[in-house]
């Protein structure tokens, strides 16, 4: 929000980040750090985000009702906040993936033709 980068770019990033977070949560509830790790792992470290940007995104997802959170014990024994995807979150993810697929398809077509 406070970044001076143009709104369209950050909106795009925001949307993508939201989608990635929701995707990582489809398997099981995770804490913030684990989400960051998962995203790096799944994308072969190509998609790297500043870890910090995860937390505003998580607040946003909770506000929209796509994710809920609960404090629990982590394997290290310290208290950690675990995030769970909600039914609404899954629906949203489905919609976003199909949107994303369409865009990817279009990009692929253009790139092949070129």
């Amino acid at each position, binding site marked *: *929000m*406070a970044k*001076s980068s143009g709104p369209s770019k950050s909106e795009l990033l925001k949307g993508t980040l939201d989608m990635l977070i929701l995707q990582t949560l489809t398997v099981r509830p995770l*804490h*913030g*750090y684990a989400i*960051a790790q998962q995203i790096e792992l799944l994308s072969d470290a190509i998609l790297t985000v*500043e*870890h*910090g*940007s995860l*937390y*505003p*995104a*998580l*607040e*946003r997802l*909770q*506000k*929209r*009702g*796509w994710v*809920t959170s609960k*404090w629990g014990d*982590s394997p*290290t024994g*310290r*208290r*950690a*906040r675990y995030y769970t995807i*909600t*039914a*609404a*979150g899954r629906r949203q993810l489905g919609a976003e993936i199909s949107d994303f697929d369409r865009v990817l398809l279009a990009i692929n077509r253009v790139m092949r033709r070129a």
Partner: protein
Amino acid sequence: MSLIDVLRYRLRVLLRPRAHERELEEEIRFHLSLEAMQREHRARGALSRADAAWAARRRFGNVTTTKEEARQMAGLGFFDTAEQDVRFALRSFRRAPGFTAVAVLTLAVGIGANTAIFSAVNAMLLRPLPFREPERLMKVNLTVPPRGDEPGWDGAPWSYPKFDAFRRAQTVFEDLSLWTDFQATVRVGSDAERVFNEYVDSRYLPTLGIRTALGRNFAPEEDKAPGGPRVAILSDAFWQRRFNADPAVIGRTVDVDGNPFTIVGVLPPGFRGLSGRAELLVPVLSEQAEPWSHAYELVARLKPGVSPAGAKAAVQQLGSVVDRAYPNPNIQNAHWGAIGRELDRTRVDPIVRRSLLVLLGAVGLVLLIACANVANLFLVRASARQREIAVRLAVGAGRRRLVRQLLTESVVLSLLGGVASVAVAWWGVKILAALNPAQSLRMQQIGGLGAVSFESIRLDTVAFAFAAALTFVTGLVFGLVPALQATHPSLTGALKSDGDRSPLSRIRGLTSRNVLAVVEIALAVVLLAGSGLMLRSLGNLLGVKQGFDPNGLLTARFNLNDVGRDSLPGFYDQLLERLAAIPGVTSASLADCPPLGGGCSRTILVHRDRPAAVPGTEPVVGVHWVTPNWFSTMRVPLMQGRSFTRADRLGAQKVVVISESAARSYWPGQDPIGRPVSVGQGGFYDDTAYVVGVVGDVRFGTIDSLPKPEVYLSFYQSPRGRMMMFARSSVDPQSIAPAMRRELEALAPGVPLYDVQPMRTRVAAAMSYARFSATLLAVFAVVALLLAALGTYGVISYGVSQRTKEIGIRVALGATQGSVLRLVVAQGVGLATVGGILGLAGALATTGVLRSLLYGVAPSDPTTLVAIAVLLGISVVVASWVPARRAAGVHPSEALRG
């Protein structure tokens, strides 16, 4: 399900913001420690713990920004950061007490004056009338067609029989009632006082939805039977004052003009009839009424489901019904009618409404100027803080966040101003109540409900809500421009040294400051023009030839009800003799009606030496009763013929004296002396009277209406019990009042003398409304001019401080002190010229609204406008002189070093 999650989340954020924040911090700590641990682990000892922690932080990004963003995302930010901003604002105000004091004071005056005027507008124009469902109440009047040289009138009162015909035929009102106010001598025990009362019928209180606080309303038969028991309802104030709020008052009697009335009820506090001043309600005696005795106002309550528009249409129809029932014998081709208006619309006279709205507009302009001024102060301050702001922008503070913080500063400042404004408003309302022009409005019989008066002005919750809203909006208005301006992202320029900012931003800054100064000047000119016109108008009123000399005159009214017609002349003789003997009194006389008071009798004049005029086209004249020496007491000059003498008495040949206007109107180019006339009142209608003299014109109506034709009759030929003393004295007129009272008491024990006023007070009262508006407008205009001058001063002196270097170079290159002075003053003159032209254009466009308030001066009066231009020019030169002197004193070395 997810809805519940959302709710739970939001409630938590809203209700436990601190906990939410702490958890976020904990979460981030957890994240960082895991990352650091993992890095340390992966490096197998190649990375120290500290380095690992550092790397984790780098990977994480800016922790503070993350927190800030998360906070905002959660919606948590608002109150939290607001509190921060408020603290910050208060701290920065403490650092700049001078700036803060000027700004708060400016705002306090602006907001306070607005609140005070708004209180008046609220009380007079807005506050719902204090009756049940006031929007369903209507006032119905008769309409009179134009007659001879008298214009038509759509506000005529009712007679009882016409009201009765109307009531019988109507179907749109659920209740209707008639009332009128009258003065009477009311005696409780041996104490007599002259008070206002109302004649009402038994439906009056139910129509308005008022219940007696004690006792009962009049019974239906009590407003009919003339010979029956007489009853009265007391006002709460009268009950408190004269009966010590004794609940056992019901059944006791009061004496009204010599007749005993049984008290049956007491009104609730605050309600004193639609006249707003009734002490007693007395039933109207309907059976004694004549169809052509028009004296009553009609108030009616709409039936449920009837719209005001529907009722108005019905009233128009009913008007013809009444006209057919009581056709006017003197009018053949035109008809009387009836017209209905919402009671609320008739609450104040149109002149009062207009004056109040003009004042509200004016005081609004003052506030705008105040805003512009404070905005200017903020701009100057913002440019001093430019580095601070640039640094904050550079380290990543969001622009929106900074704007909000600067806006918080302005809102906090305006809140301080708003709090201080309460004192200004309180004081303002006191002044408004003290200036109270209501009394003179009544004297002049200006329309409107007495129940809605300046006495009802007070600072209530509505006024405070208004002040609060105004405060908040004000803060946003004057804060927004500087906030947007100050945070405009041109970082690099500001980050460099202070004096060396990019030319673009400097021009922009100067421009918006200049615009603000020009706006201030223009608004001040509009106000100056308005108040200049009002002052000119007041001056014209002061210069009006009233036709008599008010200095040293004392006037007082009294009524003799029980002295017979034949013994009145003897009473006049004795009274005048006693009055003339009072030490200091040089001349004493009687008349029935004071000049400039309005409300004197009017009647028709018939020429006996001309063919009879068509009925309804006879000229209408004012008619006055005087004792022979009244003209000399008043110093009204005798122009022709003779005045009355003691020989013009009952039984002698009837004679009249006429005014110059009457002579000019009815005997143009002829000698009026000796002409035979009849006058429609005072027993002069069936007889022929001769004109014996012509006297100078006296203004009997409002001070701004031209003298009308008047006819004078002598008390000795047409004795009346209602009269007024006029005594001229060589001492302070007030000082002879006790002696006057004593002499009257000696001749007519128990007759109260009332409305005792020096004639000068009456003259002042006749102008009080004009004086009221003119005074307030002038005060506003002066404040506006001062603020505008202050604003100009601020802009120019800021400009000078910015241009120190440039001026230094000019001086080094040989510019003289004079040329530097000219340079700076020219900037002020430039502002004044642009602002002045815009302001004059604005004034020409808006002063038209004053037209109905002005006397003898056009809204576009060139003299006033030129005077304002000169005043403005002087103010601006003075305002720019001080900074110009400073500029002229700049030493080259000083500038070049800096």
